[in-house]
């Protein structure tokens, strides 16, 4: 089990006081996570001692920087179970990774007879690109129905397979929902999808999964897997587009320039091999190194422990929240089927006011639609409040949340 008392000391920001001298109770981890000193130090160390551009020079600093950058790639590749490090393309985040899939795979491979499947639960970054891809290629975008507790309606999926058969060329979905907390059974979905059409591509948004549970892309069987560094204790400005090697070899880049070329003449250019082929310009070197430090930290904590800790916290949060009069909890009933977050609606009180009152207690939550407007429209909700956890959160944090909610009810309804 996690020794959270010890672990919390690794995160310097958690000593901050907010507002009226209140202890910071940071429950907005689905938006971004806090950073352990080890990650801050790794970035600082790079700039203090090793900073140079990568892949370009033969002087000492450039060799060191290149080694550190490529070593970061290897660390991250191993962490997610990639076959080789070259399957990991660094991007600036999940959103860029998904947009790349859209341009580098989608535009070349989809046409007006094709069908793409996704869900209304998706984050806008795994939703809007597919809307645009539909407009660009004429491919139809269809939504797999959700169950009331926020999971895939497998009956509806079967019906879609029946209806469209081999026309279904892409399934885009999240590994875990940032609003519902649902962990989707990606392995099962990949199997069903490939049984229907072995040529169908499955692109997974793993932004809310990689930080919170062990992920092995080979075991999942998907074709693309995207995630961000900043949600997993790493810095902002770095993310990963993981692609199956055979598929990556067939893709054309959509960003051109230095670093991704082999040879350039006045009128022609040829490309480098993956992953460099997809990393034009100076890459986010320090951020990649920071992310590798975050991965090292998580490996020491052990992702199984992280998962167990978050299940326990979520179970506790669900049990306490259920007791509040007028509350509606979104997503699955059981903590084992969820990642560590809970979104809810309080009758007669706007999410924004809940967040404002909680803030006076030092509690940071998110209010609004969490970049999932179609989902909120689907459930008929204008805005919800979301509390999301990470390794440094404790049961005491949840107690402060509950206390704050009761205060909010008193002020705004009483």
């Amino acid at each position, binding site marked *: 089990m996690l020794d959270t008392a010890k672990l919390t000391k690794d995160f310097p920001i958690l000593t901050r006081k907010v*507002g009226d001298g209140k202890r910071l109770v940071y429950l907005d981890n689905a938006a971004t996570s806090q950073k352990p000193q080890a990650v801050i130090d790794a970035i600082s160390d790079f700039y203090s001692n090793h900073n140079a551009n990568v892949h370009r020079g033969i002087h000492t600093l450039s060799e060191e920087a290149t080694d550190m950058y490529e070593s970061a790639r290897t660390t991250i590749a191993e962490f997610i179970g990639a076959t080789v490090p070259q399957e990991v393309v660094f991007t600036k985040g999940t959103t860029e990774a998904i947009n790349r899939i859209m341009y580098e795979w989608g535009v070349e491979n989809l046409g007006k007879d094709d069908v793409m499947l996704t869900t209304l639960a998706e984050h806008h970054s795994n939703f809007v690109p597919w809307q645009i891809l539909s407009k660009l290629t004429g491919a139809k975008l269809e939504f797999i129905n959700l169950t009331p507790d926020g999971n895939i309606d497998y009956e509806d999926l079967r019906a879609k397979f029946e209806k469209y058969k081999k026309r279904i060329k892409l399934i885009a979905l999240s590994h875990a929902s940032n609003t519902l907390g649902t962990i989707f059974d990606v392995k099962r979905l990949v199997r069903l999808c490939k049984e229907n059409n072995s040529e169908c591509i499955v692109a997974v948004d793993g932004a809310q999964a990689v930080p919170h549970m062990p992920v092995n892309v080979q075991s999942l069987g998907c074709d693309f897997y995207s995630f961000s560094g900043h949600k997993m204790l790493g810095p902002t400005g770095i993310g990963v587009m993981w692609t199956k090697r055979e598929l990556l070899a067939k893709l054309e880049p959509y960003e051109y320039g230095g670093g991704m070329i082999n040879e350039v003449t006045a009128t022609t250019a040829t490309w480098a091999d993956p992953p460099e082929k997809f990393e034009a310009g100076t890459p986010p070197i320090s951020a990649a190194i920071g992310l590798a430090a975050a991965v090292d930290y998580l490996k020491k904590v052990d992702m199984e422990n992280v998962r167990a800790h978050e299940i326990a916290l979520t179970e506790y949060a669900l049990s306490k929240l259920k007791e509040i009069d007028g509350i509606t909890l979104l997503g699955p009933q059981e903590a084992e089927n969820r990642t560590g977050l809970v979104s809810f609606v309080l009758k007669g009180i*706007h*999410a*924004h*006011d809940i967040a*404002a*009152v909680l803030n*006076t207690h030092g509690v940071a939550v998110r*209010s*609004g*639609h969490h970049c999932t*407007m179609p989902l*909120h429209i689907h459930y008929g909700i*204008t*805005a919800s409040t979301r509390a999301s956890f990470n390794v440094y959160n404790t049961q005491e944090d949840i107690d402060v949340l509950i206390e704050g909610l009761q205060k909010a009810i008193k*002020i*705004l309804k009483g």
Partner: protein
Amino acid sequence: MDNIYQEELMFHYKNPSNTGKLEDPTVETTANNPFCGDKLNMQMHIDKGIVKDIKFEADACAVAVAASSMLTEHIKGKGVEEIKKFSKEQLLDLIGVQLTTSRVKCAVLPLEAVQKLVQAYDDK
């Protein structure tokens, strides 16, 4: 920062003036704050350049509702030309509570609606 949930603001939130719908609106509009999910619907009945009546319906936070109540009370009976000059600063003065940057967006939502309406009247 002031505690924004103090008496006057809470009074306007819990007992807002000018809520509902007009029977014969001259102009109507909606205003949204997509970042936090505030939604506002506003109608005016304007006669010879004077706002004779004004009503709003909101699915919004306390600041937006209270600001809508205070603003609509303030502009009811005034002329379109005068209302056009009503600024964000004047609105924040009217509310009288120090707001953070994100909360200012909520307070300004009804002003956005009001300015849209008087412009629509002018354009008619």
